[in-house]
């Protein structure tokens, strides 16, 4: 499978979750794991460009596909991705545990819909839980990200 532009060998254990494979085998720990049953959205990655939950996939199912994690958005030293920049500017995070998942969901949302309405923003981030911010600053981050991406 290709993760952030780099090819990686298949996992040796067919039971390996994609989330665990990314974190433990490939060593990219930016993808977080909160619930492991599809509810929190922390583990969201892009699978062939679309946001999915990496805890609900077997790593072996990703063979031959493109996976993008939070580390793939802006290489070390490069300017932040517009969505990351927007979360930074609008304080779209407090503890930051949920942030990689939100950022990946928002990247997917804006790719499909570059100019979302407030309702479409709520819908776009409805699969991600945040226990700190109360979501207001995250909504602002999405609007700002849309602006920065124009």
């Amino acid at each position, binding site marked *: 499978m290709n993760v952030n532009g780099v090819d990686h060998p298949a996992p040796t254990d067919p039971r390996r979750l994609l989330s665990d494979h990314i974190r433990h085998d490939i060593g990219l720990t930016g993808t977080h794991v909160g619930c492991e*049953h599809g*509810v929190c959205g922390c583990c969201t990655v892009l699978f062939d460009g679309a946001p999915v939950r990496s805890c609900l996939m077997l790593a072996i199912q990703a063979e031959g596909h493109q996976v993008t994690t939070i580390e793939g958005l802006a290489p070390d030293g490069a300017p932040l991705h517009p969505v990351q920049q927007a979360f930074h500017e609008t304080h779209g995070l407090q503890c930051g545990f949920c942030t990689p998942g939100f950022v990946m969901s928002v990247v997917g949302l804006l790719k499909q819909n570059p100019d979302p309405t407030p309702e479409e923003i709520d819908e776009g981030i409805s699969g991600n839980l945040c226990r700190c911010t109360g979501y207001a600053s995250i909504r602002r981050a999405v609007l700002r990200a849309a602006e920065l991406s124009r």
Partner: protein
Amino acid sequence: MEFLQPATWSEALAMKAAKPEAVPIAGGTDLMVEINLDHRRPATIIDLTHIKELTEWGMDDGRLRIGAGVTYARIIDELGDRLPGLAMASRTVGSPQIRNRGTVGGNLGTASPAGDAHPPLLATEAIVELASTKGTRQVAANEFFAGPKKNAMRADELIAAFLVEPARGPQQFSKVGTRNAMVIAVCSLALAVDPKRKHVGIGIGSAGPTPIRAAEAETFIQEVLEEHRLWERHVHCEPSALKQFGELVAAAAKPIDDVRGTADYRRHALAVLARRTFRWAWDDYRKSK
């Protein structure tokens, strides 16, 4: 755990025939939850995500034939105009990440009474196509659901597709839950109006051991529409008839009290959803004159 990854449909059917206990995986949004929570430990998994046929749809003798592996996201994007009721239901499934992976085939495989694809499939009299190495057979959605999380599929079979006529009239879907996204429905209802056949189809969800077709309510509302020539006159039906319609839909349910709601509440809500969705759909029909 053994992991099988067939590249073709015939290979998948051969694998299932050789190992009937093997568990198929499509989007994994039901199965992986069960595995991660250790409710299930399949010895063998058959990954269906590499089979092209399952992700295709097209017309087949007047019906749409939609592969079991078509995701909710694609139903919304590609079939929203032809299957508005199913697309509405699909929009309420989980969240974008779930809709990008989850499939109608998986919803049918799980056969939960709360599966959101089921009410629209019942309301539109969809057919489920099951396949094995011995051949294919078609089962009406109405006969597919056999009990709580039980369906008519044999151990050597897989779900190939579902067949449904493109909408000829307004369709609606409505569900009650604590929030818009990411909840299991307290109850749900789909309604499909077919002016050509002068038919109104109704499917209800989360209100019994299986998804249920409200056949008596269908007959009743059709008789009202016929008797008062409402199809031709394009006017609204009497509130008293609508009230009785709601009561018949509620009577078709076999709800229980559970953490999401009481049986009484579910019956009450279903009557409201029935009246409301019928009014919405009938308004659309009247305007389409």
